[in-house]
C-alpha cells in the first residue's frame, strides 16, 4: 500500500494531492479570466506575455495566448469545477474530469517550455504551478482509482 493511499481525514493523501493541484489550476483560470476582461492590464501585471498594441508579431502571439485563455475558460474551467466536486464526492466522474484537466495542464506547459521566445518566468510558473502538480495529481488519482464509485 502506497503512502498515497493513507487516509488523512476524509480522503487519502493522493486525493488531497489532486485537489491541491486543482486549487492551483483554479488560480490560473482566475488569471485567465482577468486577462480576457482586461488584456493590457494582464500584460502589465506579467500574467500575459504579449500585447495587442505591439507590432504584427506581438499581436499574432497575443492571439495565440488569447486563444489559450478562451479555451481555458470555456472548456477547462467547467471541467475543473466538475472534477473538484466529483473528487470531493469520490465519484468516477470526478476522477475522469480531473484527469482531463490534468492532461491539458501537462500539455500546455510543455508547449510553453519548448517555445524559445517565451518569458522564462512564465515558463517556470507554468511548469511549477500547472505541470508538476498535475502530474502529481494524476499519480495520486491513479493510486487511489479503486475508491471511485463507477456508477
Amino acid at each position, binding site marked *: 500500500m502506497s503512502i498515497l493511499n493513507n487516509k488523512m481525514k476524509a480522503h487519502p493523501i493522493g486525493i488531497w494531492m489532486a485537489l491541491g493541484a486543482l486549487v492551483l489550476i483554479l488560480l490560473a483560470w482566475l488569471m485567465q479570466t482577468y486577462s480576457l476582461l482586461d488584456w493590457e492590464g494582464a500584460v502589465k501585471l506579467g500574467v500575459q506575455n504579449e500585447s495587442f498594441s505591439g507590432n504584427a*508579431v506581438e499581436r*499574432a*502571439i497575443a*492571439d*495565440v495566448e*488569447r*486563444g*489559450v485563455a*478562451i*479555451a481555458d475558460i*470555456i*472548456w*477547462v474551467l467547467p*471541467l475543473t469545477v466538475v472534477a473538484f466536486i466529483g473528487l470531493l464526492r469520490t465519484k468516477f466522474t470526478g476522477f*475522469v474530469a480531473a*484527469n*482531463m484537466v490534468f*492532461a*491539458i495542464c*501537462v*500539455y*500546455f506547459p*510543455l*508547449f*510553453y*517550455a*519548448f*517555445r*524559445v*521566445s517565451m518569458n522564462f518566468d512564465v515558463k517556470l510558473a507554468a511548469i511549477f504551478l500547472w505541470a508538476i502538480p498535475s502530474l502529481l495529481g494524476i499519480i495520486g488519482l491513479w493510486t487511489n482509482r479503486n475508491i471511485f464509485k463507477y*456508477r
Partner: protein
Amino acid sequence: MIEPTNITWIITIFGTVIFLLLLIAQLVILIKPHSQQAKDILIAKGEDWRDKTHFKVAFAFAWADWLVIMPLMVAGNIGVLSGQLWGYLLWIILGTISIYYSIVFYVMEKEYVYPAVGPIIYYTYLWGGFLYWGIISIVYCVLRTHNVL
C-alpha cells in the same frame, strides 16, 4: 472487458488518420526544422515562416504533440481495442486535449489560415477533424462505458 464494436473501429481509424497526418507533418519540422519541406507542409507550398516567432510556435507545438498526443493515441487505441477501461480513459483525455487546441487554433487561425484555405478544407480536415474526433470520442466513451451503446 468492453468488446470493441464496428463503431469503435471507425473512431479508431478516423482518429489514427488525422493524428498520424499531423504527427508526420510535425516530425518533418523536428528533424529538419528550417527545411523548405517543413515550410511546404506546415504553412503552404513555397511559403516561408512569417518570422522567427511563427517558427518557434510551430516547433513548440510539434514537440508537445509528439510527447503527449502520440503516446496517448497509441496507448489509447491499444487499450480501447483490447477492451480495457483505461483505454477509454486515455481516449477521453486525448479527446479533451483535441477539443482544447481546436478552440485555441480557431481563435489564432481565423485571421490567416482560414481565409487562405477556405471553409471546406478548414472545417473538414485541417481544423474540424480534430474537434469532431474529440467530441465523438468523449461521447462514445461515456456511452460505451455505461453500456448505452
